[in-house]
């Protein structure tokens, strides 16, 4: 069954674009153009994810979020906001949002985050001690990484970077997601900081193997997986 997404966004151009993009990716999208309608749909509770604009006519986004959470609905919510300051982000995340995306955003970024939330919202996974992708294996307890039986020597940060990629196998992981997940920063570090780290990691993980695992997704970010 297709995943259902509720999109609460008053800006038509953005809403059209997001809705079309999500539909093309196989989601079923319901749209609401204001906070009141959005809240009405959301309380239905049958959605897998809610994409919520922060500034809405009528009830504003944070109000809708508070009402949804007050109604006991645990659907994952991504807040979209033109307010991009770190403080607004913290406020959003501490008030019931599962993720916070600043406008303007790339569609792939939103898509990657929706997929991430849906997977997280799915079956709560058992605590893993070994992460795998093909012949790449990471032992979280011993903090050792091997590929095809050969040990890979990783710096602590490279280890965390690869761990993050391994936890999101076959998913597109954007630069912002890596910066948040691995470094716990939310600002734009400028230049190509993340790309440089990834290219170093790729050298260690893929060099000397026929089948590359770490792929660059044009205009979006990176993906770890067997398929090219």
């Amino acid at each position, binding site marked *: 069954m297709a995943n259902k997404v509720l999109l609460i966004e008053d800006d038509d151009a953005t809403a059209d674009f997001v809705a079309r993009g999500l539909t093309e990716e196989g989601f079923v999208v319901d749209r609401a153009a204001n906070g009141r309608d959005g809240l009405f749909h959301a309380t239905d509770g049958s959605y897998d994810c809610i994409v919520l604009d922060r500034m809405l006519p009528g009830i504003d986004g944070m109000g809708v979020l508070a009402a949804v959470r007050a109604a006991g609905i645990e659907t994952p919510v991504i807040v979209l906001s*033109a*307010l991009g300051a770190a403080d607004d982000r913290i406020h959003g995340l501490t008030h019931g949002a599962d993720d916070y995306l600043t406008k303007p*955003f790339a569609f792939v970024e939103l898509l990657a985050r929706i997929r991430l939330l849906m997977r997280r919202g799915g079956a709560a996974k058992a605590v893993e001690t070994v992460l795998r992708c093909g012949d790449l294996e990471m032992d979280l307890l011993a903090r050792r990484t091997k590929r095809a039986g050969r040990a890979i020597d990783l710096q602590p940060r490279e280890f965390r970077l690869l761990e993050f990629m391994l936890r999101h196998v076959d998913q597109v992981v954007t630069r912002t997601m890596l910066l948040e997940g691995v*470094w716990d920063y939310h600002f734009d570090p400028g230049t190509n*900081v993340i790309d440089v780290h990834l290219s170093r990691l790729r050298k260690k993980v893929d060099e000397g193997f026929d089948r590359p695992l770490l792929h660059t997704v044009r205009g979006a970010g990176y993906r770890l997986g067997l398929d090219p």
Partner: protein
Amino acid sequence: MLRSATFRFAALVFLLQLVSAAALIVTIGIAVRRQLQVDAQRTVAVLRDDLRASYAAGGSAGVRREVALRTGRMVTPGTVLLLVDRDGARVGGNLDAWPPSVVRDGHATEVTLYRTGLNTAEPMHVEAVRLPGGERLLVGTIVAGELRAMRMLEQVSGVALPLALIFAALAAWIAARTIVARLEEPLAALNAVAAGDLAARVPADGSRDALATLGVAINGALERVETLMGELRMATDGLAHDLKSPLTRMRVVLERASDQVRDPAAAESLDRALSEADRLFALVQTALSITRAEAGIGREHFTTVDLATELESIAEMYAPLAEDQYRSLSVAAHARCVVPVHRELLAQALGNLIDNSLKYGAGPITLGLLANDAAVALTVADRGAGIPEARHDDALRRFGRLDEARQGGGAGLGLSLAAAVARLHDGTLMLGDAAPGLAVTITLPRE
């Protein structure tokens, strides 16, 4: 300490307390003395009138008998009497000779004389009277009581003055404490606002004194500050929204177009347009961050972090970029230094400084951390050409670029943001000469 108004006020209270105690004792002394004098005069007057009456009744012999009676039997213990005849020869009484200082008749004087048979001189209050027969009579009374009273007063003062000293000190301390205590609430409110809690106010205490008026005035000013900050926040938020919504749409259109075109040249142009859009967005974002930091917005999100760890983490993030330029990036922090900061903004500020050095500097980059009890200094230094001192102001200006021809990279907001972040923490940003090279130092005060 002498310049402290509180201390001077306490000292004034102390002195005034002492002066008032001293004044009280002196006043009592004067009053007692005057009263005793009046008593002595009255005693002498009664004695004189009695003797005159004796003279009128019994003539010279009557007086002589009366004098002998009064001095001999000690009817009144303090009595002083001397009767001399017309030639000044002693006739009777308890003085050996007429005191030379008593000349005028009918006039009271204070003298100190020996009474017959006594070997101590006593102060006395005397009056000379000429009797109708030509004899002279000296009538007086010992004022030893006055002396005793004065001595007692001295003793009392000896106890009362140290007590007064203690109470004066206590009064001064209480007065100073009261003032300091009354100022605590206004101070707390002002400090809280300075620290970012814009809603802090001085609680009303119901009194209508000067300090309560001060509290009301402070609250008025704080109210205004809060309103202005709210308006500023709304204005920047509004601006952010107004700019970002069209930017989002623009990005959306470009992204869709980029997905649809098949012509590689067009695709490349669209990608470039997208990255320019992202740069424009980053610019707006940074400019807004600067404005907000300058306005002190974000102080409520300070968290305690160890700056040494933070520097390591930032250095680690940028190290590969430095290595790609064959430059080193190292941290020189000798100790942990845990302070409340806006972690995100501080990291961004340091990141900008490193980014600047990567773009415009040369040689190894050092992130330094120096701390003492008063302040923390974070330094990003390199071994490049540096910035001549005359151009430091240009470098710190918003959108200021030293090399106009230099393309790409930031929009000249990096240093401005770092300076704004320093000010958000009540600190400063200074450009210095690392001889050679540029050393940018962010100094944050510790509480």
